């Protein structure tokens, strides 16, 4: 059991989606106590060639300097800050510029080679915030309520398949297509059958978490000309197991649900907002309506702005 949620403001303007998503996820806290996370889109304000890196660095003498040096060799750090976290590590956040998006993954791989350093995320159009602990604690730790954006997806995790740590918290992202991330409730039981052909095509898997294969799968489809809706529809055919998952892209969000409908999903919308979540209790934080639509088994829904 996990909780998933997504919200899109239809006017394409910046709103307090960090605050909205925190409220939505807090209502889904009972579905997953282990970790929580957000992808908040549209509010980074970066130039076209700029990216944010978020890197988990162990409290260790000179390690942060090594991280900075590794990045600076490839591209100068334009701005940075250190975010306090829990445990024996902290989050180093920096802004960089790259000529091509394809240079991002090699840079991340280089930084990941440093011992006790893990790159949590690298993105252009969204800010990923994820950590272990409760939604409200994480929201306070990273000041999420003040993060603005046009749309967002979020997750509360009840771990089943892999470890409980910051890296394995959702969302997961891919570096094949820019700024695609996923949150997922359920299991992909034909994980290896999905992963194997993607690896042969060059996708690099970092974990054994089934959610990671979802985001690579969707990115691969988008990269080969599928629309988000088509990619989600095809995933319902190709994935086995109980699942409902939400994809975030710079254009919007989409949900897919397994053919047997074994994981929940509801949707509600008004003139201003389109929202999806595991449960109505979460939707009610952002949508003032009693008209709630059940997402049917095998159904796919997309809202793009």
């Amino acid at each position, binding site marked *: 059991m996990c909780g998933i949620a997504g919200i899109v403001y239809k006017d394409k303007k910046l709103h307090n989606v960090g605050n909205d998503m925190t409220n939505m996820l807090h209502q889904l806290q009972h579905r997953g106590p282990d970790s929580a996370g957000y992808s908040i889109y549209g509010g980074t304000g970066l130039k076209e060639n700029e990216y944010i890196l978020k890197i988990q660095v162990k409290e260790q003498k000179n390690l942060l300097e090594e991280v900075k040096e590794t990045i600076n060799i490839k591209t100068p750090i334009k701005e940075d800050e250190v975010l306090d976290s829990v445990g024996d590590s902290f989050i180093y956040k920096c802004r960089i510029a790259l000529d091509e998006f394809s240079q991002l993954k090699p840079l991340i791989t280089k930084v990941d080679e440093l011992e006790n350093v893990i790159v949590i995320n690298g993105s252009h159009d969204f800010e990923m915030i994820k950590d272990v602990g409760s939604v409200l604690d994480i929201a306070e730790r990273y000041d999420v309520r003040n993060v603005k954006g046009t749309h967002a997806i979020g997750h509360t995790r009840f771990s089943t398949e892999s470890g409980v740590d910051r890296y394995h918290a959702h969302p997961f992202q891919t570096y094949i297509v820019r700024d695609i991330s996923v949150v997922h409730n359920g299991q992909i039981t034909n994980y290896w059958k999905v992963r194997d052909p993607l690896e042969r095509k060059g996708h690099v898997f970092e974990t054994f978490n089934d959610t990671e294969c979802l985001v690579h799968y969707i990115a691969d489809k988008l990269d080969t000309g599928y629309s988000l809706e088509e990619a989600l529809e095809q995933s319902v055919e190709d994935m086995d197991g109980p699942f409902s998952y939400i994809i975030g892209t710079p254009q919007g969000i989409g949900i897919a649900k397994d053919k047997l*409908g074994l994981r929940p999903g509801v949707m509600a919308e008004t003139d201003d907002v389109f929202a999806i979540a595991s*449960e*109505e209790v979460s939707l009610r934080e952002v949508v003032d309506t009693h*008209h*709630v*639509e059940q997402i*049917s088994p095998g159904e796919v829904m997309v809202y793009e702005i």
Partner: protein
Amino acid sequence: MEIKEINAENLTPREINSQIKEAAKDYDKILIKNPNAKHYLAAGVVDDTEIEFDGSVGYFAGTMCDGAKIKINGNAGWFVGDNITGGEVIVEGSAGDGAGQGIYDGTVVVKESVGSRTGEIMKNGTIIIGGNSGFMTGIFMMGGRIIILGDVGDDVAESIIRGVVYVKGEIKSLGNNAKFDELTFQDSLELEETLSKYEFDIDDYSKFKKIVPKSTRPFYGH
């Protein structure tokens, strides 16, 4: 009639249920304000009291009740009316998957549409859905009636052993061991009697399709 009002705004489901059970001993009707789609509300009430929710409820609303009359002025999540042994649960809005799952008796009514697996493994009683019902409605049904006024999804009455499903709208497909049967005049009369009690206005009661088991013996594998 003595009415007890409970404001659920800042209460946990456990606290709400404790207050409902305490009030059910002394009051004829309990009105719950601000249920805010919380889960497990009015679980296990065994007094014949009226319980009204002024808003939506979450999962397992009214589960394992016996005799209470529950009205929900909003939507319900998954498994509304789960395993009730009597009484009724009426949802004015829509509901999620598994509405009326496993009921032994009593009536579960959802005025709008519901999700999948409505009436799964029900043993007796009646489930009425005013709108559409999804995939595998009536799966593993062992008795009772399901009445769907809208359309119904694939595999209706999958692996049904006893019981009957009536559908007024379109049927996508039947499940294993399910077959159509002729709607009798007696069936129409029963439908009219049952549906009019819950203020459904049907123009022609002879238009329902009736689905029953092919075999009433348990069967395994195909």
